[in-house]
């Protein structure tokens, strides 16, 4: 079912926790809400779940308006951050607990519990208590509890944040596999942009109690809507330059540099913030029209690529580059206009090439 969120707002007395969110989540979509702590992403999820009341706006599906319905009437399942397993019940009983008020027959419940445990490969631990399980196994129980309900939408609130890196990677794959096999809608909250990028069909970036951008992972990477998204998505982070385009619309000057350089494409005169992805900032020995002289501060040889750090900028080059700390090099801005991410200095909003280019 399509979940349509319209102008959803949450206020707490004077504080706005979430401001005017609208989005449509498609059936079967893996939809990720990502943002830093306190951005409001969890509040959005909890409003969808019905755990937090809505101040204004609506949540609808084809079935009707959910906004004021109690959680159980929304036909959702949820995986909690700390798993919310009942310590006094066994694994199987915990899964069964999620079926409590669904009006299923006992026989049906038993079948569902068995199936759900099979899906997460926990059949053998059905009679254990949560305490006897590892963190990853506890996470699987929580997943099984959600799966057993056969809800066509599952909400997940930072489900992997309590796991170590290796388990996190493993569970990431596991959740993606389950999503592929079962095809339910997943609404997934995380603060980890890598998790968002690797898992999501679509990502909503939330920051400062507002939606910054909604789009596919590559949308966000290639066309960040503002400086926040540009900086938040991608590791290493975007490089930033302050840029002045001359009145002739053909030349620019970087802040702190005297040189006036030719633009790769004509732009309206004025101030810009320019973002360049590390892989588009080329490290080299030769001085070209877009080159900046730098002294290398640090080098990270990752094998498949080399990261070169200078000041607060970083360049990523495929393969292994022969470069050492303290050497002088040139960082060269890209020639391709697509690799120039221009933002308004005043608002941080993206300035589309169509808007900025003149007389092409």
């Amino acid at each position: 079912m399509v979940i349509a969120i319209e102008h959803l707002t949450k206020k707490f007395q004077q504080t706005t926790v979430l401001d005017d969110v609208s989005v449509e989540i498609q059936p079967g979509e893996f939809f990720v809400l990502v943002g830093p702590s306190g951005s409001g992403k969890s509040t959005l999820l909890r409003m969808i779940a019905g755990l937090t009341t809505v101040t204004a706006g609506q949540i609808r599906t084809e079935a009707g308006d959910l906004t004021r319905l109690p959680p159980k009437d929304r036909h959702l399942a949820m995986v909690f951050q700390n798993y919310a397993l009942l310590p006094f019940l066994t694994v199987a009983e915990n899964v069964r607990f999620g079926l409590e008020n669904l009006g299923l027959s006992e026989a049906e419940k038993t079948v569902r519990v068995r199936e759900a445990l099979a899906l997460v490969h926990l059949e053998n631990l059905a009679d254990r208590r949560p305490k006897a399980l590892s963190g990853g196994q506890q996470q699987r129980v929580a997943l099984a509890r959600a799966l057993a309900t056969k809800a066509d939408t599952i909400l997940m609130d930072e489900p992997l944040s309590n796991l170590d890196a290796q388990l996190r990677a493993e569970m990431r794959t596991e959740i993606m596999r389950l999503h592929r096999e079962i095809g339910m809608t997943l609404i997934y909250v995380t603060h980890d942009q890598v998790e968002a990028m690797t898992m999501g069909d679509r990502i909503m970036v939330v920051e400062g109690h507002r939606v910054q951008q909604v789009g596919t992972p590559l949308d966000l990477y290639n066309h960040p809507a503002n400086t926040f998204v540009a900086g938040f998505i991608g590791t290493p982070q975007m490089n930033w330059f302050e840029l002045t385009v001359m009145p002739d619309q053909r030349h620019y000057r970087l802040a702190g540099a005297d040189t006036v350089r030719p633009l790769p494409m004509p732009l309206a005169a004025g101030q810009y913030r320019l973002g360049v992805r590390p892989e588009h900032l080329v490290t080299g020995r030769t001085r070209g029209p877009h080159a900046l002289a730098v002294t290398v501060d640090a080098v990270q040889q990752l094998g498949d690529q080399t990261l070169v750090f200078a000041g607060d900028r970083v360049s990523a080059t495929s393969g292994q580059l022969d470069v050492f700390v303290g050497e002088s090099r040139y960082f060269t801005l890209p020639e391709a206009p697509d690799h120039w991410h221009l933002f308004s200095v005043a608002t941080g909003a993206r300035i589309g090439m169509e808007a900025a280019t003149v007389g092409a």
Partner: protein
Amino acid sequence: MIKRTIQYSGLTLVALLLLAPLLVGLWASLLPTTDIAMGALNFHHLSLANYAAAIQTTPIVRYVLSSFVISSLITIGQLVLCSMAAYAFAFIAFRFKQAVFFTFLVTMMLPFEAQIIPNFQTIKALGWLNQYAGMTIPFLTSAFGVFMLRQAFLRVPSELIELGHFLGLSHGQTLAKLVLPYSRSMLVTFGLYTFLANWNQYLWPLITTFSDQYRPVQVGLKQLQAEDTFANWGVVMATAMLALVPTLLLLLGGQRFFKRNLNAGGVKG
């Protein structure tokens, strides 16, 4: 080595000193009165005769049964009513919550010993004198129990309560399926405490019971003291030992458990 011996002897001596009244009482309960009267506390005549005599010639069994009925009813009542009230305080927002909470708090400052006159008149007016009702109903709840259980309930992770809410559990289901099972050990501790505290009640049954049929065991001991049997020390000690059975069971069996929760739970607040 010598230091160890001194330490152990010292500790044993202190322990024996503290246990002495109990041990002497137990010993005496196993001896014929004639031996006791002569101060001959040797072990030639050890027997359970005093216990047999106590059971046959005194209403001690009746007393113990009454105490058992009364303490059990009160314990069940407090577990139910205090859990209910504690749940409301822990998990539901309602108007005047602070005021109501304060009301409960205040009752802990008011000694029962100062309320006996009107309470006696109330029970009398209700026709509950010398009845189980009069000895149980006034004690079916306690502010202390409400506080202690509220503390325990607040330790239930809020995520579990949310889960219950998310699954559409009613308050009753949340209490029965989540909160109570989660707080099991505190409930057991509180139940034991309540049972024992009421087993040991003295003043209230003293003024509200008049017949052996309903008289609980603590007041029964006084009754036996007042009667001729008191000269028969062996039998008296046997009855006292019977009155102490729940206490001793707790001491030997449940103490570890009791202590752990005493520390983890209510007392630290």
